[in-house]
């Protein structure tokens, strides 16, 4: 980011934009991180009944090789730290899909001290699916919405994260305290 202007694509490759979009939307790989309740509806999606492999989607353990992050269900602050680290490890362009009503406004646990109420303040969200728990057909509809948005060019969560980084960073630091990455890592090394 040298000249105060963020470059997303090189001018030379503009001709190939339709090809890149087609390749991106037909081969989304998911980070294998089962973050909450909704993880129980992931195996039916992955296996024979509501098969998502026909769209080219596959779960993958490494965050560096993935482009779609499914946050399935509620998020606690302890998990949110790992989600932020994983999200920042993924390469651009990356998309976030949240399941359930808990990340939208707290859901059933609206008065709990250990559940994050609005996930959109900490991580940019592309598509949210309401329900408790959303059916596999709803999740498929959400994935098809992301595919449609990639085609139109409006799936820009990663651009919003880069442009409004101070806003997200401010919210994260307010929740966890300043310098939370270094302090958290050192807590475990002291044991050894």
């Amino acid at each position, binding site marked *: 980011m040298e000249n105060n202007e963020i470059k997303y694509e090189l001018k030379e490759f503009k001709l190939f934009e339709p090809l890149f979009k087609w390749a991106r939307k037909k081969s989304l790989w998911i980070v294998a991180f089962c973050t909450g309740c909704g993880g129980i509806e992931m195996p*039916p999606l992955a*296996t024979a009944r509501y098969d998502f492999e026909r769209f080219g989607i596959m779960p993958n353990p490494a965050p560096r090789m993935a482009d779609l992050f499914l946050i399935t269900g509620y998020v606690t602050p302890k998990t949110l730290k*790992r989600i932020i680290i994983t999200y920042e490890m993924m390469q651009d362009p990356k998309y976030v899909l949240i399941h359930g009503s808990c990340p939208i406004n707290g859901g*059933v646990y609206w008065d*709990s001290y250990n559940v994050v109420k609005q996930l959109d303040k900490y991580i940019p969200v592309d598509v949210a699916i309401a329900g408790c728990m959303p059916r596999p057909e709803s999740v498929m509809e959400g994935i098809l919405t992301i595919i449609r948005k990639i085609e139109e060019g409006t799936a820009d969560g990663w651009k919003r994260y880069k442009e409004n980084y101070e806003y997200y960073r401010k919210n994260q630091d307010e929740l966890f305290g300043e310098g939370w990455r270094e302090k958290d890592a050192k807590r475990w090394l002291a*044991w050894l």
Partner: protein
Amino acid sequence: MEKVEVPRELKEEAKAHDMYLYPIEKDTYELFFGPQHMATENFSIILKMDGSRVEKAIVNPGFLHRGFEKLAEQRPYFTNIALLLRICVPESDVPENIYSMAVDELVGWEVPERAQWIRTVVLEMARLSAWMFWIFGFGNELGLYTAGQWAVAYRERFMRLFEELTGGRVYHIYTIPGGVRRDIPGDKWLRQLRDTVEYIKAKMKDFDEILFDNYIVFERTEGVGVMDKKFALDHAVTGPNLRAVGIDYDVRKDDPYLFYPEVEFEVPILKEGDSLARALVRRYEIEQDLYILEQLLERGPPSGPYKVQDARLKALPRFKVPKGDAYAHVESTKGDFGAYVVSDGSHKPYRVHIRGPSQSHGVTVLENLLVGARLADVPVILKTLDNCPPDIDR
């Protein structure tokens, strides 16, 4: 870093072949078997490794903690069913049942027979769908992905039956203190349930060929993660893990509840206490559960009301429960699930304490069994203990 001396015999043998052996330097490193992993479900273990062997393990739960017990004190009795059932996600009928049984004991009314029959059938269906989910997890850790694909597809049949009965696939909100919320949708549902049971019975031999009779599975799980009787009783191990050590404890036989005294079934017991024994005990239990469902369906539902008829139920949000405390427990696929409810006479509970089986399996037992195992055995031990992280965190 310590230096480990090479034994003298190896040095002499090397000299005979014109080689020279250097002393090895022992160095340990820590490995975060963290929440972002396909085997553990949002649960973290911190391992101190020496090469590829584990020297020490520390368990780091708390990623799924929502403060259920404090939340349950702010909501009236009947509303807590919609909240508390999210404690154990694969079998969500078990927390509903233990809470309802404890409140039934506090209030002192008699649940009608038809409701008890329906509750037993729902519990057995939940057990079978949880067994199918366990086969998916167990097969994936060993690299046999086909067994998991079949098992989750068979589980979908149960999900469709649940949807017709209760309205939801995963979260049912069906068992309430005093009975169940709705009646069975008719004879067609019972016929479909019987067809499902027979279908799965016929498919068990496929699972045997691919998973339980497989030479690779035997090699990978025999002698891995061994427990003995004293260790198991000291660490409060329950469920199929305890039956794989040789102790005969099944809540359905020892402290019977609902319709279980009327059906006959066996409790499978093995003696070795390693991962293979734990997996095989679960395989025999699937057969016994299918047999129990067959007997229940043959007997047919008794006639009568499906909910208790009591005038107090008309004032439902302000339903008051007499003072006292009660403990109820139920045999789930993971172990012994219990609930302790304390009431002080008002319309909200004073204290609800849920005991999940993974509170003992997933913490002290895991930390002791992992010592000395290789890195590739860690997910196998984790899955044969059938650890469910929301039980620990609640």
